[in-house]
């Protein structure tokens, strides 16, 4: 046992020596891998993604095939998660549906985060009139309830996965941009920003190399939290018929249907909720680990 421990320590020492030489990204990766809780989160996420991408490999059932005589079968040998109100296999619908849920939620998060970073960092860094203009625009965006905004956008653009993604991301822009703005403003007060200017760094370069890297921690937390929220929003939109359309399997819409039968048939509520919960849980754990790994102050 002690020998194994010694070997491990030696290996770790070698690795640290190696990472010192091989640059910071390697180091970040090593710190990430060493974080057990974070890796658990990452494994959850990866497992879900594999399950969804390789859906046909993990079930023999077609998620669209209806067999009304088989409806509301409880979990068993044939249908491991049971069947829904049209007799479709729930497990198949959930793993196929994850393709839409994850893709839309992830896409919407990326889009709204990017827009938020752009608007927020410009507003926070330059201040003054630019800040005023952007903040007022965000006020307008935020004055409309996000679900209402999403409804308006999806009904204007029509339903479908891509439009749903766009509609949902709009609601996230204002919050992300505001958070980004406040973070950037606090960073701008540091003397190293003035030092960058004093050493001839242009505004764009200062933002890219001195401001943005210091905003990563709150940014990642914000993004990993909003993935969960976005999955819920998709289900909201799907519920009123504007998100992903009826036969297409999607976690939110399955859950919305399940809600009708909550007293009589539990699997239709429990399993979609479980998938959503695991996704949010996994992304949050992974997000936390990523934030810690990217912070040089928390090294070792």
């Amino acid at each position, binding site marked *: 046992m002690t020998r194994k421990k010694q070997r491990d320590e030696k290996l770790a020492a070698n690795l640290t020596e190696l990472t*010192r030489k091989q640059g*910071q990204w390697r180091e970040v990766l090593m710190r990430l891998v060493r974080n057990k809780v974070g890796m658990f989160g990452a494994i959850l996420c990866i497992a879900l993604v594999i399950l969804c991408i390789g859906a046909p490999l993990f079930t023999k059932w077609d998620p669209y095939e209806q067999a009304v005589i088989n409806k509301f079968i409880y979990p068993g040998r044939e249908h491991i998660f049971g069947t829904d109100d049209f007799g479709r296999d729930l497990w198949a619908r959930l793993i196929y549906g994850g393709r839409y849920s994850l893709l839309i939620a992830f896409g919407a998060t990326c889009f709204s985060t990017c827009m938020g970073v752009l608007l927020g960092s410009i507003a926070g860094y330059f201040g003054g009139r630019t800040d005023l203009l952007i903040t007022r625009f965000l006020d307008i965006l935020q004055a409309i309830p996000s679900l209402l905004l999403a409804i308006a956008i999806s009904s204007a653009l029509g339903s479908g996965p891509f439009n749903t993604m766009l509609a949902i991301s709009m609601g996230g822009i204002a919050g992300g941009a505001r958070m980004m703005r406040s973070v950037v403003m606090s960073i701008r007060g*540091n*003397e*190293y920003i*003035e*030092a*960058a*200017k*004093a*050493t*001839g*760094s*242009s505004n764009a*370069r200062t933002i890219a*190399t*001195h401001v943005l*890297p*210091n905003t990563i921690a709150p940014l990642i937390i914000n993004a990993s939290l909003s993935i969960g929220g976005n999955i819920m929003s998709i289900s909201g939109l799907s519920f009123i018929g504007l998100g992903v359309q009826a036969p297409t399997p999607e976690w939110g819409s399955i859950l919305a249907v399940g809600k009708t039968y909550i007293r009589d048939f539990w699997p239709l509520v429990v399993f979609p909720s479980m998938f959503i919960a695991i996704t949010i849980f996994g992304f949050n754990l992974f997000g936390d680990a990523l934030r810690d790994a990217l912070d*040089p*102050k928390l*090294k070792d």
Partner: protein
Amino acid sequence: MGELIRVEHLKKYFNTPGGKLHAVDDVSFVINEGDTLGVVGESGCGKSTLGRTVLKLIEPTDGKIFYKGRDITDITEKENKQLRKKMQIIFQDPYSSLNPRKTVSELIADPLKAFHMLDKAGRAQKVAQLMDVVGLSQRFANSYPHELDGGRRQRIGVARALSLDPEFIVCDEPVSALDVSIQAQILNLLQDLQRDRGLTYIFVTHDLSVVRHISTDILVMYIGAMVEKCGAKDLFKAPLHPYTKGLLSAIPVPNIDHVREKVKLQGELTSPIEPKDECRFIARCPYATEACKQHMPEFQEVAPNHFVACHNVKTINNM
């Protein structure tokens, strides 16, 4: 040695809800190559703003700044960027002036990267050389600033300022955040660098004893305006302005038998927002007369290279 920096009637006013804040009000001086101008005053007297305005990091409200005889008051953005290679700044706080996400070598190489100077190997070589010059061991090259103490951090700040090989450096209270023992090290380093590289400094501080040995001339400021300016030795030997007298008698002397005339400064700083046309020191001056209320005293030469802004300088000092 020729003149390097000439500042004429420099003014910097900030707009505040209460009116114009006179941070720097009609300041003029000349610094010759290789000299150090110590700028002394209490917090909020505009000494840091003065340093940044001379560097053109802040646009002046009025007045002129000359660098080697060339007017740099109204230059383009592009010219301003080129000016960064000549003029640098060392900051007060070695904690907030270093980006916490960059290693020591990245911090020192950053100015070179901003100007696309040298290739990667050249930069590494330059960084190693600079670390050597400022007395930082090479083993810290991959450390982050939070792993180092205040003195080492300030050495990084010095190395960064030197990386573009400037001729003129504004030291904005570079030692006031450090322990006394480390203060001396950094001051010695700055003096060595000045000697070896022929640097010219503006040394901003609130601590008179710090500038005593490093300065050629000392400029005392009070609420944005010049109060007294003369050679460093003269200032400590024979201060003429009541404010300077007060500052000097506040320096503790490590001798219990030392008896001296104390000039105590009573009261608070008056507001720098829209100051009246009277002597700015009037509220705290033990020698204030009717004349002081009439208008602001002129900054005049009362002895060779000794300028004072006081109506009663002659009567106070029996001249």
